[in-house]
């Protein structure tokens, strides 16, 4: 699961998709997950990273993580069908 290469993420959590022109604001946890996705980390790596910093158990994290991914997919931010 990779984030599209041309997605820009600012330090303030502003995400811009230059292919569609959409922009979003994400919170700090979202920013960290996006950063890890940009580094092409696996689910396990993202999970261990986030659960070591935040008070969340692994199964709850997975549930929220996959929800988050489906949202990224819906907003065409994931590199599945690269139209770029």
């Amino acid at each position: 699961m990779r984030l599209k290469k041309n997605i820009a993420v600012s330090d303030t959590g502003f995400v811009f998709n230059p292919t569609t022109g959409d922009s979003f604001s994400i919170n700090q946890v979202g920013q960290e997950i996006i950063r890890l996705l940009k580094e092409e980390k696996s689910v396990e790596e993202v999970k261990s990273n986030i659960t070591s910093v935040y008070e969340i158990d692994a199964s709850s994290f997975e549930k929220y993580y996959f929800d988050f991914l489906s949202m990224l997919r819906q907003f065409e931010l994931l590199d599945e069908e690269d139209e770029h």
Partner: protein
Amino acid sequence: MSIKITVALTGLNNTDNPGPGVPVIRGIRESASFDARILGLAYENLEPAIYMDGVVDKTFQVPYPSEGSDVLVKRILEIHKKDPIDVLIPNFDAELYAFMRSERVLEQAGIHTFLPTLEQFEERHKSNLPEYGKKYDLAVPFSKDITRIDEIGKLKDEFDYPLMVKGKFYDAYLAYNEEQVRMNYNKISAKWGLPVIIQEFIKGTEVNVVALGDGKGNTIGAVPMRKQFITDKGKAWSGITLDNKKLLDLTYKIIKATKWRGGMEVELVKTHKNELYIIEINPRIPAWVYLAVGAGQNLPEALVKLALGMEVEPLKDYEVGKMFIRYSYDLITDLKEFEKLSTLGEL
């Protein structure tokens, strides 16, 4: 060193449904190659750009093309005698026919234009879009011309509601039922005449590309944009440049296949399956062209160069994520200015 030229253009109606005149002038004024004197050609006395500071150097009133192509061209030649024009840039679809037909006459008088050919202009007409799609292998929505109000009842055999009701030059409305089609048919036909075009409604995101073709199949520049805020007239109040290769490739393909000459705007809808449908091809520079200038492609300047027969290197780069936001502004002027234009036909 910049070249002194005089450019005459229309589209000074910088209203909530703006013509491209002001952004085209801004692009030309920002050119390092030209020191341009701008002659505004106004159809109406209250077109805002006539009175704006630093936009036009002089304005001349011109007759509407509906009064006859010859009358309009005669007026241009009359202005040219008084105040010689090097380049003429028509900015409205409805006047293009008159200027394309008179291109040679204008050229002989020393007025340069860079317009599409009559064939290019005709074949991309909204009512010809299905054939255009077939000819150039482009995805376009199904559409049909209607010229009688009693044809509306039969539309349900060929279309699903909602559908688009469009004028041959301008205006487009989404209609959810026969009654709405009828209402929009009357509104459009009264303003733009017949036929009225009925077009399949493609659900998705609207994206546009402003482009310039050199008439030999080469794209001189192209910038894609997504409208971020749309007025009740369907016009962009804000937009952002995109990095979208698919959109650009499609534009290059159209320009190459048609050998498009001049400015154009490709209006497309991107469906949720990422398919691109061409809903319109406008045969001139759009009112949002200044976004392209701001993003690094001065297409109005390139158009002037092409009209003057100068070599123009294709513009490939532009800044992605550049935005425009329109605004309105109350300009204060004196009655004597308005009076001068109204009585003398020039200001």
